[in-house]
């Protein structure tokens, strides 16, 4: 597989140790991206959670149990598995910054991309989205609404990137060299513990440029070579060890070790 490389690489770094699992990021994500409220939320096969906070534990019995929370947006992979399988080119990775797009009007709902995504970051709209009783007045102007029957996913709040570029143009700056903090997704803005950092990993002036080199930084399932643009940081060994499921000594483990920063 050929990896798409750009001069800008929008990258998210999540400090797992600081996430308290409060869920504010999940709520803000829905508000920003016009995900309709659902009356039944415990059938997780039908819910639409572009940002989903997983609960991890160290597998030990009381009193040695430890818990961590891991927020999971779309990984915006460098080698996205979803893109080549789409029969109608409804998802692409061809824009400066490396965000994997999802073009809803073009999607035919075949769900090949969902089957291909190893991170379960893609969601199919099984139900009609409904904002009852005037709740549509709180719709965000940033994101189009989707009917049922198409696949949707996190796009790092792409319209905010467009807004930031517009601002840069207006101020006579290079829209592809945005200052740190100009472009931030909704989940980051709402996170009360500052667990989410975001920026251009290729820009030395952006904080994430250094964070991804932290010895405790890792990516999920590095062994399968998707090259995600979402990194995690944890001081806890057991959290980092759960990031991949390769057999010890296997080819995949060696590949993962080579790919690690």
């Amino acid at each position, binding site marked *: 597989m050929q990896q798409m490389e750009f001069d800008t690489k929008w990258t998210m*770094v999540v*400090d797992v*140790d*600081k*996430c*308290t699992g*409060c*869920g*504010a990021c*999940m*709520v*803000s994500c*829905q*508000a*920003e991206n016009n995900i309709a*409220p*659902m*009356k*039944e*939320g*415990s059938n997780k096969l039908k*819910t639409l*959670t572009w940002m989903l906070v997983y*609960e991890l*534990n160290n597998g*030990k*019995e*009381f*009193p040695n*149990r*430890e*818990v*961590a929370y891991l927020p999971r947006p779309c990984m915006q992979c460098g080698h996205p598995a979803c893109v080549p399988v789409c029969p109608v080119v409804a998802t692409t990775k061809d824009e400066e910054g490396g965000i994997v797009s999802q073009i809803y009007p073009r999607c035919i709902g075949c769900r090949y991309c969902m089957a291909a995504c190893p991170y379960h970051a893609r969601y199919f709209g099984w139900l*009609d989205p*409904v*904002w*009852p*009783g005037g*709740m549509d*007045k*709180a*719709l*965000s*102007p940033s994101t*189009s*609404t989707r*009917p*049922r*029957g*198409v696949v949707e996913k996190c796009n790092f709040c792409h319209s905010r990137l467009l807004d930031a570029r517009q601002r840069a143009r207006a101020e006579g700056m290079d829209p592809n060299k945005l200052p740190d903090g100009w472009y931030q997704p*909704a989940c980051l*803005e*709402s996170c*009360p*513990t*500052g*667990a989410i950092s975001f920026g251009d990993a290729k820009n030395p002036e952006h904080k994430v440029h*250094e*964070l991804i080199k932290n010895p405790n930084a890792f990516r999920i399932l590095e062994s399968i070579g998707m090259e995600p643009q979402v990194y995690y*940081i944890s001081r806890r060994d057991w959290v980092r060890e759960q990031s991949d499921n390769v057999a010890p000594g296997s080819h995949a483990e060696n590949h993962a070790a080579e790919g690690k920063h």
Partner: protein
Amino acid sequence: MGIDRRTFIQLVTGGVVGSLFTPVIWKSLDDASIWSQNWPWIPRLKYGTITEQASVAKFGAAPCAEIVKSVGGSPYLTRGNAENEMSKGGVDPVSASGPQLMYSLSRVNGPMKKTAEGKYESISWEEAEKVLSEKLAAVKGKKGKLAVVSGDTTGTATEVLSGFAAGMGAECYLMPSEEQGAAVALSSMGGKGQIGYDLENSDFVLFVGADAMDSWGSVVRNQCVYSESRPTGEEIKTTYIYAGPFQNSTAAAADRWVPVAPGTGAIFCLGLAYHMLKAGASSSASDFADFKTLVMSRFSPDKVEKATGVAGTEMAAIAKRIMKSSAPVVVAGSEFAQGAGAADVIAASAVNMLLGRINKEGGMKILPELPKAVEAAAGRSELAAKDFVGYLAGIASGKVAAPAVMMSYEANPIYALPQNTALAQAVEKSGFLVSFSTYMDETASEADLIMPNPTCYERFEDAQTPYGVGAAMLAASAPVAEPLYNSKPTVDVVLGVASVLGIDLGYESADEVYQAKAEKAGADWDSLIEGAAYVSDSTESGSIKFAASVLSKAVTMPKGGEIALAPYSKLIIGTPTVAIPPLNVVAISKFELMGKDLMVQVNSKTAKKLGVSEGSKVKLAGAGGECAVRIHINEGVMNDVIAAPLGFGHTAWDAYSSGKGENISKLLTVGTESGTGISVWTSSFVSIA
């Protein structure tokens, strides 16, 4: 003429060619693809000018300073206001849903009164105010005939209600919160003002019971302070330890979790004090000798281990670690932000006193109350110390007469009170129940008169010194949107009714009250509504004592041998006042709600003891009622403890929250704390069937 082979081939060929040219097939396929994804209603995005305005959201359990984004005047998104000291940036998951709560299906559209048939009919504000004035005129000056309860502990609106109640010769209460125990604790220790904790300047924070990341104090501020002490990718500046029965959000974020049995926070703190005293810790407080005698005689390591489950060696190690720190602080509270009484706070204060951490940077602070805007109102701590649960327990038992009129503001007592079945009935015994609720909640659904308050986005609002913060402060906001429905700010309603009844509260409108509050506090009103908070750096002078005589009576060793209930409160599930917001439904864990079944959590050892397994349906029975639940095995729960989330089991509201799970408040057992006499409900035990 017969059909020969040639004719047949011609017919088939003609049919195939014809069908390729006819649009019917293609049109049918096209229509089928459209119909199969047919959307009966397509919402249209609202376009217009995007504006941002600072606001103080009161949707969450503590005020949250945020920036509200609106399009064409309609709020649609919020983010934290990092410039405001009250919550320092970030939003909680209820406030994050603020715009959607403004357009909630549960909003009350206008004033309503209950008819003889038990249905509600819309009435005008004039009629509603007339009905209320008449009912209140009949009870004015008659002791015990009117009761007022507020769920807003920080707003000046509560001062207005308190002042009005005083003018009526009635009592004003607050809904249960951490503040009640802290107010009684400080008064028992001989102090005045309000207890706070300077977490941002501490290098070692021990939370005992207090779930600072989800329910204790100003949660968003706690989270932001925690975040500042551990910048991503850098060294940790402050060590956090959580002591409690369940691995909640605070335990998950802390550097260490120390399992401590539910309701034994005071014993744990006094167990630490034992080791500190043994190491030579001392104090100049007048009753130090009594305190030392009490601790050394009744809280030896073996007794403390038996009660809390924490080994003596571990307690000694924690005590040593605290004493080694340069700016430690110990914070005690309930695991679910209510019902702990005063003993936990007194015991934690005693540890802070032994460490010499009272009114020190990074320590426990005794904060002044901001000057009152309404002279007739009770002071903040005086109001907080009143025992609403005790009052209702008296009504339930027939010892106290039910009031002729009860007014409920920003509160949902029928849903949120402990030992819910009995105490909700006590509320319903009121002769005339008035709800000022914004939403059709459980209390509004039983009320005789509903006078809806607009949401905090549609009215002036303020917030003073949320419980737990380390400095006295004030924040305020102006409306960010036009009122959506025919609602009226409760402060304006009360001022109007007071005027009719000849009670002079000194103001004619809500914004006048808020501006006067700011002026008296020394804050600049314009700066407040632009998003800045006024912060005072003063603390109360004067020393406090250990309240050894109160501790001696209030702290008793649990009997043990039973299954203890450890309720917990998570903002994603809502608050005692606001039910599950629509956008939060999908964010609730399947280990807490599965379909309509509430999941409670036990570890595998307890499960084995109880003979239950993952998914088992059981019935929990407490002193106050029963709940049908399912079991989830979670090794983050102590032995012989069942952890259960509050916030479910609503019977009113809307489809996003109603009929989901059980209201665990039913199982809470209300008792009385010896020494202070206030109601407590952190030690509840359950049986399983």
